[in-house]
């Protein structure tokens, strides 16, 4: 990544609307494509959990496919997790850390504002 592009990214960071709350599926995930087109985000809506909404990278670094939004969500020892639909490893929705292997996925700041789902990008 070039320096200018990085600078742009830093200067332009702001809350950006991705979709409407009605697009969310309770206790499940959806995926969104970022403007750069080389990043995909998995967004999970878990109303009974602490944060209620989570955003992590959609790319499964172990299975090497963009599939994490299709994984089942739940908790392991109170940590909210998504389980990869390919090989079932758990990734923390809070930290992005894989609970079984030395792998990590990105985590994004996410909020709901006026029924709009927004990512801080």
């Amino acid at each position, binding site marked *: 990544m070039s320096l200018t592009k990085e600078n742009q990214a830093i200067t332009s960071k702001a809350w950006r609307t*991705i*979709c409407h709350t009605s*697009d969310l*599926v*309770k*206790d*499940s995930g*959806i*995926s*969104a*494509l970022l403007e750069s*087109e080389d990043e*995909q985000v998995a*967004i999970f809506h*878990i109303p*009974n*959990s602490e944060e209620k909404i989570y955003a992590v990278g959609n*790319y499964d670094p172990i*299975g*090497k*496919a*963009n*599939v994490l939004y*299709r*994984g*089942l*969500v*739940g*908790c*392991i*020892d*109170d940590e*909210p*997790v998504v*389980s990869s*639909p*390919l090989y*079932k490893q758990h990734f923390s929705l809070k930290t992005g850390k894989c609970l079984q292997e030395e792998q990590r996925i990105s985590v994004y700041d996410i909020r709901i504002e006026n029924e709009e789902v927004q990512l801080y990008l």
Partner: protein
Amino acid sequence: MSTGKQLSSKAKIVVVGNGMVGHHFVEEMSKHEDYQITVLSAESRLAYDRVYLSSYFAGKTAADLALTTPEHYDELGVNFETDAKVTNIDKVAKVVTTESGDSFAYDKLILATGSYPFVPPIPGGDVEHSLVYRTIDDLEAIQASADVSKVGVVIGGGLLGLEAAKALKELGLETHVVEFAPQLMAVQVDAGGGRLLKEKIEALGVQVHTSKATNVIERGDTCRYKLCFSDDTVLETDLILFSAGIRPYDNLAREFDLELGARGGIVIDNQCKTSDSDIYAIGECALWNNFIYGLVAPGYNMAKVAAKDIAGVTNDKGEAAEFTGADMSTKLKLMGVDVGSIGDAHAKTEGALTYTYENQPEGVYKKIVVSSDKKLLLGAVLIGDTSEYDSLLQYMLNEIALPESPEGLILPSSGDKPTLGVDALPDTATICSCLNVTKGDIIAAIDCGAVDVGQVKSDTKAGSGCGGCAALVKSVADKELEKRGVEVKKDICEHFAYSRREIYDLVSVGKIKTFDELLEKHGKGLGCEICKPLAGSVLASVWNDYILKKPHLSLQDTNDTYLGNMQKDGTYSVVPRIAGGEITPDKLIVLGEVAKKYNLYTKITGGARVDLFGARVEQLPLIWKELVDAGFETGHAYGKSLRTVKSCVGSTWCRYGVQDSMSMAIDLEHRYKGLRAPHKIKFGVSGCTRECAEAQGKDIGIIATDGGWNLYVAGNGGMKPRHADLFATDLDDETVVKYVDRILMFYVQTGDRLQRTSTWMENLEGGLAYLQDVIINDSLGLNDALEAQMAAIIGTYQCEWKTTIEDEDALKRFKPFVNSDKADSNIQFVTEREQIRPARGQEKIDVKLIPSTESNTAVTEAVAEEV
């Protein structure tokens, strides 16, 4: 190249030889920090696995067989030299010198020089294509020779000789085995077993010649050479492979004056020390108690003992480690033939008595050797079926008193075969022979705090070798845990302290309709990928709601959510139902047209239907719309539910068919399609006893008879094959359906998560007889309820794909992105055998996302050009 001179003050250990045993010693010794280890190997390669040598011809490479690498030895801090043959030992100065003149000082010297193949001195035998079978270099020579040969002969019909014969066979040669003794494997197997073994090996296309002594090898008439035997017969061959036993590589000991056995071998004591107390010998070059062990396990044991002795490691009682011999019992598969040999296989013990069972049609031979008072097992030979091996070995090793009629141990199962309970085993009983873990070790692990089998395994390493002892480890651990009052938990996961069966009862008795309700009343936390699909399956079994209805949606695994099987690249497969494998040409054309339109990889499955691969999520509804419009419905290939009913054409077409198996298969498939179960279910229906549909390998198998149908249950292919049990005979159509209704519903209600019918039935207390009692005699008074429940489920069947494509809301799930219609650029295909396949890592190109198209073609072409 290092000079071998060390600046450190660590004690110097020099290991001569880097075979399997020499390498094992290095691994053991490097656990202790105070030693500087130097390995001198005469071969050009570091240690590799000789046990699996023959797999070299099945495509394994030298790297696959390697037991270590230069990097690994560097990591361990071990110096090593290859092509470094030791030619001199100065026992006084304690220095060894190699052929090239390098010298290495030692404090302790380990001789692990192994053995070499014995080549009998046959006149004319020293010719170009006369080879041995021992090292990777030998294998390369065999391969090169085989390339210009048609016929190959192995001289020697022992264990290694048969391995070598297998290699020649795999190289495509007409293969012969010539044995001097009257039988094969004369060391391990008795005459009767040898006879059967010969028959079996010959049936595999290898010609066996026993009682043949080769007098001379001459130039051949039709082949390169001619073996002339002492009985005046001859055998022509292009390649001769000697496998006539091994001889210890003891020349260093011979030259430099260490004590040798009368017929060779470096004499060692119980600490593996030679006559010079600073020199140890281990493995096949060592002679212990006048015996050379030609197996790897005793060699490993010697390596361990020598390393402990050098490091001064003692046991709890302060005793030094000791090598006290090894049991030579073996169980192996030779060219696909099961062979087992335990202890005194030849009944040489004075007064020994034998029991023999032979079943020639099935190719099974079993013999046990017992003491004169019939109290103890001394040995056994098993050919063709080694299922009793483990149990017999325990009887022998632990001197367990035999049952009153010892023959029961090897007679075919008559239902009352005495089984050896784990309680009968003494603490010294070896449970895992690869890692040498005893029952006492397992008990010790539990005493130290292990609370389940998993922990016992990780603490003791039991079962981490070949894994054959897994079941035994579990029974020992479970039994010991039970004795200590530890409840063996059946909880499905951390969110529910219940078994699947209990959850089923909670749902049906409590009239629970959603997962949230179940979690609130009986669970905790948010659930997980184990309890959610389980609850989804149970809710579907009890209430049969459309599984993608909002409250159930988040419970399903991706396969159930997207109604297809996810493949490794995140695409899905599409499998429409083709009941009984019967399909009209018009429908077959539709499948072809759809596959072509969407450029899907197309394959006929083992279940007699068609699998279409490579559909992206957004394509699934489009593809299924076309299929549903043409009259197809979902095949549930993604579900824990009925997959296929395999069938033959039966009496309608077949000259031999006695019933209409096709109609029966199609009726059954339509009756049970969509039923959610603990695991997938497969059926087979055969129209006659020839059993072309392989019904006895299915969960439910039905075979036509003159008088109706025979019903089989709980068969399985796949990972753990199980022959189905005959459940009832000569049933009419109506009774078949009634019984199957009850059996399936009983399974759905009581099976564990991911438990196939085979393990389910084996775990039912009382097994088959109990199941027959419940289903046929209604011993639990459940049958009316089971039938009613099944009728309700059949009555509410809907094709999930039809329902999905008619539901606008559900279709939202199939959009690739919530904020874009573009397709995932990481899904890329290349062409192979005229069809697509997922691009592998290095084949992928960095493409910007392209607009979603109906077909896969665009991406395919873009990538295909690049590759």
